[in-house]
């Protein structure tokens, strides 16, 4: 970790859908270069909270800061902040009418107005980096789930984000494809990318996470380094959850 400046700061975040409180007073800080994993039972609000960090959902109350930018401010430049926050979805959400390279270059070309050949050069390098150097011109429906998710990671990286969000990136994948996606994520973590990951991949947590956050029922129950949280959880609810999944 190069410094202790918080890159993502979630302060007293609350999100209601009608009368349902999906997230209650959540506080999470991700320091630059840190990998934070959020775990918890389904419906615990972890995905909702993650979606608030690039404002696909709006917080009901509370604040989210990306470096010096307050995402929840009334005048926040959402589009500029979103450029700096990469997002990887559970269901990949690749653009089916564009090739792998097209998916990776469309953001820089449309949003950043990068010239096409420059965007393609960067795009090819990113696809090489996620191990898809031979799939530049393949369309999403010609790729396996694992390959699609790696293109999706490359697409997010193409915007050169300060932080990457992963919303259950491996839970839609067949078991034999999970590793190839996790390997890419491990590589990113090793290169110092700041990452906020919703996932239950314990192997990834142990190998790469600096901090694990346990959420239940919309609340952050416990935050600790993985070796502490997994072996010696402070809360009973954490213990019960871990018993179920380990």
């Amino acid at each position: 970790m190069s410094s202790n400046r918080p890159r993502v700061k979630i302060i007293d975040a609350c999100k209601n859908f009608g009368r349902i409180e999906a997230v209650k007073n959540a506080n999470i800080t991700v320091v630059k270069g840190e990998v934070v994993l959020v775990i918890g039972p389904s419906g615990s609000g972890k995905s909702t909270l993650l979606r608030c960090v690039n404002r696909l959902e709006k917080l009901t109350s509370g604040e989210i800061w990306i470096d010096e930018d307050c995402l929840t401010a009334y005048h926040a430049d959402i589009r500029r902040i979103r450029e700096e926050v990469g997002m990887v979805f559970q269901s990949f959400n690749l653009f089916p009418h564009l090739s792998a390279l097209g998916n990776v270059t469309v953001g820089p070309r449309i949003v950043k107005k990068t010239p096409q050949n420059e965007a393609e050069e960067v795009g090819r390098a990113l696809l090489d980096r996620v191990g898809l150097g031979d799939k530049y011109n393949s369309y999403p429906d010609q790729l396996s789930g694992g390959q699609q998710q790696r293109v999706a990671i490359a697409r997010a990286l193409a915007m050169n984000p300060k932080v990457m969000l992963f919303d259950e990136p491996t839970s839609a994948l067949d078991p034999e494809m999970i590793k190839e996606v996790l390997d890419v994520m491990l590589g990113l973590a090793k290169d110092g990318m700041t990452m906020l990951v919703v996932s239950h991949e314990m192997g990834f947590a142990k190998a790469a996470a600096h901090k694990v956050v346990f959420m239940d029922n919309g609340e952050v129950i416990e935050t600790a380094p993985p070796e502490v949280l997994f072996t010696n959880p402070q809360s009973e609810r954490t213990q019960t959850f871990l018993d179920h999944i380990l």
Partner: protein
Amino acid sequence: MAEVDRSSPRKTRIEISDGALIPERDERAIFSSWRISFFGAIALLILLPVISPEPYRRIITFLPDGILMTFIVTILSIVFALIVGLFTGLGRISRIKIINRIATVYVEVVRGIPLLVQLFYIYYAMGRIVQVPRLVAAVTAMTFCYGAYLGEIFRAGIQSIPKGQMEAALAIGMSRGQAMSRIILPQTIRVVLPPVGNEFIALLKDSSLVSILAVADLLRRGREFASKTFYYFETYTVVALVYLVITLFFSKLVSMMEERLNRREQQ
């Protein structure tokens, strides 16, 4: 009228139940219903003037101007209706309330008034302000009517694209407009192509209504000829056969297009 199959995101297709007769994709018989009607009609159009040159030969030389006019009305109307339809479809899903309301009211009004009445109304309503050529009134009315239908197709098409597409586009920093034009609409076009083809055929048939405004289309030319010569039965036989050949030709084209789209999806 338009139904969206949301069961799987990749094979989204819009089914249209009314409108033109589209050949069944799996009908592979040599004597398919399409072939019987299409080649039967062509054979009749060739045979009738041979067997009975008077009056059929005269009728057939009299009609081509009308066919041309029918195509002019149809093509102008579909082009304008596509533009109106795109904006109506976008308006129908707009999050700005007033735009949404305007688009929805427009669709409701158009759907509730018979096209024939709309034709009269627009012709005479326009006539009170400025005297416009009949062709302009006809195309305006057809555009007004079909713009609403096509708007519903565009709306269904846009809504058939999974929500994750818009989210993924927003997540890389695109504006809603950029996401719509670069990500959503290109995918929508593939989905709406077959139903738009159907509407084109329906419009082509409905264009015969403009003959009541004395636009010299195929039907109008037929009427002129018949009222001069009193060959009513013979003239309208030819008129019907010509319409049939044209619509069957285009419905085959639409079904081939649909088949190609499906095949590409299955790859």
